[in-house]
């Protein structure tokens, strides 16, 4: 592979990196405090759009089976033999996903960032870099690369969580997140080392090959290694029992960062988990499927039950997103070994994730808009929102319906596919627990709806929606509805992105 070719395949990542560093530089060049924040925001948004263009540009290059990204520069530096990354359906899906996450987060962050911190350029740059790490993680095919990109994501996330350094809660959140994260990542690394020790390979494909040829004598090590890796990735996704950091981190972090954390790292965790389990450990599906089914059940149930008692909307949505990850996990637990079915589990997970992106980021955008006005994000702050801003209230209502899974919203399509996968695999208990949980979840989403729709706002002023916020909420709202009403392209996107891995079975 030539250097030019190599660079083209990495175009989205390169564009994003350049954009992030240009934001750093522009932050120093542009003067004037009032306009600076908003200019940087739009510049970061432009960078995201260019990354989108780059992603679309490289899309056709992947082909049906994916293209390894590697540069032959001679001995000892990777080389064509052991590619670190791959350009395939799954990584393209997550590139697109990341771009969309960044776009909505950047759009909805503007006013909040202007109000809360003087350091605006760094904020957007760090968000873009966090996005870059998601792209890298989802394309990694090697344990080393996986670990590096996940660490990269973690470190940017820690900084972003503690971004409001004069705010004690923000700092506390960052410390908690960091300590949990360090431990989880150490455990995951230990798991990786066990895998390497047992199979003598760090490439995912090579691990699978080693296991398949039966040359592995320490086969019993694989299961503990699997559990340890699951702990590390479960931490990123916030699966129970590795979730304890998330409510505190979500509550303390600046709200746009919370929005990002609730979607971005989760997606990265799922991307790696999918690739790791399906490419490296297909032979152990019986094991990990059972473990994931159990984790899914406790994650959904605990997330939902604890969410019932929350009064802070950010915290409530934190537990909600724990539960949502539980639903998604059903798709992976009930992964169908054959690809000819309408729901392979994997396409359900991706579809769910895609719908969840717009739903959750949209909901957080509304929370940001409310918080900008009232200074906090507790349930009473939403009182009378239907009067104060009908647009935000209706949008929030639709987002909450989508989180519940009421049609016609994207959340419904996601649930239809993951529950469908569970029913197909005859994992009826999993499906029943799933639907019962979506009923339970109604009650705490209702606790947001209640003040918002039924509450009387006595003299509260209307909420003005900035153009960028309006765009973020509007696009999210439209997408949530479109994913259900015109589902075909999205189902196709999810199914084709999942296709490349189906070959592993």
């Amino acid at each position, binding site marked *: 592979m030539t250097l030019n070719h190599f660079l083209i395949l990495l175009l989205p990542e390169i564009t994003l990196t350049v954009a992030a560093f240009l934001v750093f530089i522009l932050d120093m060049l542009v003067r004037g405090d009032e306009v600076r924040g908003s200019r940087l925001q739009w510049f970061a948004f432009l960078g995201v759009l260019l990354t989108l263009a780059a992603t679309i540009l490289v899309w056709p290059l992947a082909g049906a089976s994916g293209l390894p990204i590697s540069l032959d520069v001679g001995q000892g530096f990777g080389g064509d033999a052991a590619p670190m990354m791959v350009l395939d359906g799954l990584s393209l899906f997550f590139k697109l996903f990341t771009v969309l996450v960044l776009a909505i987060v950047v759009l909805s962050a503007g006013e909040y960032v202007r109000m809360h911190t003087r350091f605006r350029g760094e904020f957007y740059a760090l968000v873009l870099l966090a996005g870059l790490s998601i792209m890298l993680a989802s394309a990694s095919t090697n344990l080393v690369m996986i670990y590096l990109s996940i660490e990269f994501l973690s470190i940017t996330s820690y900084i972003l969580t503690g971004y409001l350094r004069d705010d004690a809660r923000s700092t506390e959140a960052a410390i908690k997140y960091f300590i949990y994260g360090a431990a989880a990542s150490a455990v995951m690394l230990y798991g990786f080392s066990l895998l390497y020790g047992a199979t003598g390979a760090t490439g995912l494909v090579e691990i699978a090959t080693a296991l398949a040829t039966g040359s592995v004598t320490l086969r019993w090590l694989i299961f503990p290694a699997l559990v340890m890796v699951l702990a590390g990735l479960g931490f990123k996704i916030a699966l129970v029992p590795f979730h304890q950091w998330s409510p505190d981190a979500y509550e303390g972090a600046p709200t746009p960062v919370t929005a990002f954390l609730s979607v971005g790292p989760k997606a990265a965790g799922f991307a790696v988990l999918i690739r790791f389990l399906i490419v490296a450990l297909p032979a152990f599906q019986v094991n990990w499927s059972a473990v994931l089914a159990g984790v899914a059940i406790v994650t959904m149930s605990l997330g939902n039950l604890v969410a019932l008692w929350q009064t802070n909307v950010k915290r409530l949505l934190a537990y909600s997103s724990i539960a949502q990850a539980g639903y998604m996990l059903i798709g992976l637990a009930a992964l169908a070994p054959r690809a000819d079915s309408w729901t392979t589990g994997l396409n359900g997970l991706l579809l769910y994730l895609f719908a969840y992106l717009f739903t959750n980021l949209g909901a957080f955008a509304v929370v940001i808009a409310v918080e900008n006005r009232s200074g906090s994000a507790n349930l009473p702050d939403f009182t009378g929102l239907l009067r104060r801003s009908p647009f935000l209230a209706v949008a929030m209502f639709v987002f909450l319906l989508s989180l519940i899974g*009421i049609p016609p919203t994207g959340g419904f399509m996601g649930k239809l596919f993951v529950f469908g996968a569970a029913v197909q695999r005859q994992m009826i208990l999993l499906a029943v627990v799933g*639907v019962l949980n*979506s*009923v339970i979840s109604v009650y705490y989403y209702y606790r947001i709806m209640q003040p918002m729709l*039924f509450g009387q706002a006595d003299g509260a002023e209307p909420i003005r929606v900035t153009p960028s916020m309006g765009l973020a909420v509007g696009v999210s709202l439209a997408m949530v509805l479109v994913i259900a009403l015109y589902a075909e392209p999205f189902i196709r996107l999810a199914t084709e992105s999942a296709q490349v891995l189906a070959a592993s079975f």
Partner: protein
Amino acid sequence: MDFPFLTLITFIPLVGVVIVALIPANREREIKWFSVVLSTIPLVLSIVMWALFDPGQGMQFAEEALWIPTLDVYYRMGVDGISLPLIFLTTLLTTLSLFYSAYTIKVRVKEFFALFLLLEMGMIGVFVALDLVLFYVFWEIGLVPMFLLIGIWGQPKDRPQYSAIKFFLYTLVGSVAMLLAFIGIYLTTGTWNILEIPMLGPLAGNPVLAVAGFWAIFLAFAIKVPMFPFHTWLPDAHTAAPTAGSVILAGVLLKLGGYGFIRILLPFFPDLFKQFAPFIGIIALISMIYGALVSMAQWDLKRLIAYSSVSHMGYFTLGLVAAAARLVAQDPILSSRAIALDGAILQMFNHGIITGGLFFLVGVIYERTHTRDLKAFGGLSAKLPIFYGVMLMTGLASLGLPGLAGFISEFLVFRGVFAIMPVYAIIGIIAIVLTAAYILWKIIQYVFLGEFSEEKWSAIFDREHWHFSLDMARFEIITMVPLLFFMLLVGIYPAPILAVINTASTALLSSLL
């Protein structure tokens, strides 16, 4: 391509929602009258459709288009003799409710009318959908606006928010169970087509799953109908809902469950339905008698009528059970089954007309006095003679007086049930006696008869806020006239509507053999 009646009837209300959303909120008059006029379009279309309907044929006005190809989901609609009367009922009650609300809704007018039209779309969609996914989508769409109608426009003293979320949760429990069953059915038959699935034997390979699927779908419809013991959301929802909301709730939403039983559960699982018929029949009897007894014990006029719905929908279920209890082709039995099913379907239509009317009439007295306490009234027949007359006629229709609508359907139900399950019929008759008791004793006697006391009346009559005539105002009379007309028409000359229903129910029953 034929004229897309069903698409238009279903989605014209949605167009209305969009337009209402665009009208500024302070132009209340325009919003109100635009909504009323717009809602007459589906009404007129449904009447035209009925006129063009050929009773001899099965599904008509069918429309089909691929919606989600990878999932085999079709946008598939059609109408037969079972759904036609219910569509007409929906459009009629919606127009009347909007007309009535144009005079009585004073807060958040824009939201109210927009949501009401959205509700209409959801309800009609359920009656016309012939694809399980489409059915489910409309089923859930109808849930949301009703939830908001109860929660936002309910009277604060009736705990509207509690009632609204209770309604939402109860319905959703059933819905999600139903969704899982639908997925299972799709996985075994490979289609979502409601008309094709019965022939493909849904969940046939696995008897345990089939039973689970049967009860999952049963639960969804039983909650909606509602059947004892899943009925407890109903009185709360009714009490809290604004008048028009109660009318639609009783008049149409309960029918969604009944329609589901006939369109989905019975044809999908005829054998299981037959197997469980004795048990479901007992539930129906409990609903009938228990509903009537609890109704009799109420002192809140609206709650009384709410519980009477539990009882009256029990007649429907009993008729349905009888139709399902024997799967044989012998002629007398088949015709008894068809009679029972005809009665059940007609009972849904009649209950919509009659109980819808009763809720309007509760609204009449409630708007004047802001109370529904039966003990607060008395002797009103002299003060409000027109109201008395209308209430008497509607009440008598409800208790099944010959010559009025309720009698025909109840007679058909009992005639059919008696031939198939005589013991159930004999026990069920008790409910009719109890109905007469609560209508005549509780409503008529406590509200209208007895000594009129000026003191009592002036204590409750809210002169300041009532700007219309003391007796039924013109808009209230206009609202009731179509309902009274249909009570009489169906009571005296039911042949046209029965002809439509009978062909469909006979065809349905013969297909089950």
